């Protein structure tokens, strides 16, 4: 059985994507299969770094002008059509999710996204992934090769890098490829600041119980004074009271802090997935029945505003 990893080397998060794939390979495949990695990239100065961080020893490089899914899919199909690969692995980011499904369709295979684990069987691949907004885990059997899998965020704790040297098997330059007529103009704006949530040790999260932008502003100050990163749940994100990159949950950041305090968060499963790897969770909520209470280590049933102000006073006094 053979596998190929597909990675977007134009993405600023390439290294962490590659590390997660390495961890996923370690957890699920080990050394039982032969594999290589296809990396799309555009900047020559990053070439060496991309090769060094490849999750497999064998690397195939494709140079493109910029990451554009329609072009990348066309290139991939031409490249892979006559190869007999059983399993394609894609990263857990936007690109990986999109490519896995569309590429599988073009190759006549099957696909699943947000896959947390796989098991290889004879003529089949068993995969687990969340369903029902992260309330349930669904197990599927795929029977149509090639299996195209986009891994789930946080599906592995292993962050491995290979110590063997890498070997570039092939290099293709596709920078002269026709741009097509779909896109007339484009403008890319890089993220102003990375939120840092995924690596933060202490997170304070605002939920639906935070009623207006002024209260949100105050929470921002409390977070700053206590040294916490500020996170938000979906209802707050939808009101645009904080940037979307502060969103926690399956469609936002998947965090694993030492300490997590939630303020006015109800604790829907799709949100909770974003904090379930926290070492310690403290919930402050007026509703004792809210599901966050049972999902926390310790909870205070009261108005989060008063509790946090009191807590801030205690912390500030004890620091003096």
């Amino acid at each position, binding site marked *: 059985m053979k596998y190929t990893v597909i990675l977007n080397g134009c993405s600023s998060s390439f290294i962490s994507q590659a590390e997660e794939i390495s961890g996923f390979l370690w957890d699920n495949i080990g050394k039982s299969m032969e594999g290589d990695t296809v990396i799309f990239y555009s900047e020559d100065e990053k070439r060496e770094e991309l090769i060094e961080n490849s999750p497999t020893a064998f690397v195939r490089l494709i140079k493109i002008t910029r990451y554009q899914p329609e072009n990348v899919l066309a290139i991939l199909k031409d490249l892979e059509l006559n190869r007999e690969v059983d399993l394609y692995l894609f990263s857990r980011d936007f690109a990986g999710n999109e490519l896995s499904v569309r590429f599988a369709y073009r190759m006549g295979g099957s696909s699943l996204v947000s896959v947390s684990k796989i098991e290889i069987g004879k003529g089949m691949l068993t995969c687990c992934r969340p369903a029902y907004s992260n309330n349930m885990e669904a197990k599927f059997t795929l029977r*149509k090769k090639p299996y195209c899998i986009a891994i789930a965020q946080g599906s592995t704790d292993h962050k491995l890098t290979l110590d063997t040297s890498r070997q570039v098997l092939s290099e293709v330059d596709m920078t002269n490829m026709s741009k097509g007529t779909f896109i007339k103009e484009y403008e890319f704006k890089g993220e102003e600041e990375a939120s840092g949530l995924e690596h933060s040790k202490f997170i304070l999260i605002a939920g639906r119980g935070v009623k207006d932008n002024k209260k949100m502003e105050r929470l921002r100050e409390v977070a700053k004074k206590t040294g916490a990163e500020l996170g938000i749940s979906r209802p707050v994100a939808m009101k645009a009271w904080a940037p979307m990159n502060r969103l926690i949950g399956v469609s936002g950041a998947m965090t694993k802090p030492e300490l997590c305090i939630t303020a006015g968060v109800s604790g829907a499963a799709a949100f909770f997935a974003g904090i379930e790897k926290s070492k310690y969770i403290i919930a402050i909520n007026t509703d004792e029945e809210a599901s966050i209470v049972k999902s*926390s280590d310790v909870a205070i049933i009261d108005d989060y505003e008063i509790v946090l102000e009191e807590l801030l006073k205690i912390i500030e006094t004890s620091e003096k």
Partner: protein
Amino acid sequence: MLSNEDWVVDSNLSIDVSFVKNILNCFDESALEMTLKLSDYVKGLNIPINLTALTIGDKKLDTYLKTLYALRFDKALRINNNEDIRFLPQIVAHVISQYVKEINKQDVIILGRQSGEGDNGKTPLLVAEILKWPCITQVINIEADKEDTLKVTNMVDGGILTQIIRTPCVLSVGNAPNSYMRVPTLRDKMKYGKREIDVLEIDEFNIKALLDTCRNECELKSLEKISHERQGVIIEGKTPAEKARILYDSYLKERLEKL
């Protein structure tokens, strides 16, 4: 939200959610509001626009379609279905594409990126593939440009991309701020919200053979509740200040010091 005890999986791997209040999926809601905003823009530019809403499911969904009539959609259509297609996005994509190809041609198809039950995250991508149209994912804003072009903003890895694109295309809506769906006026509800919903049967879309193939190619084997439970110790105290003090002394101080 269902309580822990309510997540009961039966022998068909179904979960009874009939007693829970139905709501629009958050991505679908954003997609609908974006469509309405786009319609407002386009009308402002005097470009003709025709809005169709399509859903697949049973009669319970008609209430949403009636609201969309009241919000001035031109056509609301339900494709009646009683098959279990929760985990078969290929079927949903097949029906949508066939409808667009053979019954009611469109320039743009706007969909939410993921449903709350199946969580497949595949339907918009498969619609694009079947129709051989380009697709933009994680869309957060759609504006009119010219008659056959749109200005589409979407989240991509590492930033935000704004593109002027040519139709036809599929737009898959992601985490879009400020996209709660508007509420129709009472007047519009009375005037437009009572139109009959068009209904087609899913059998008309030749899905029988495809159903068997899809179920075999990607077969659901089990569904299990993910447990999120922790200790959930509730701090008792007379005042918020007292509770904050107990929290700090017994649970927080040491942990903060270790950070």
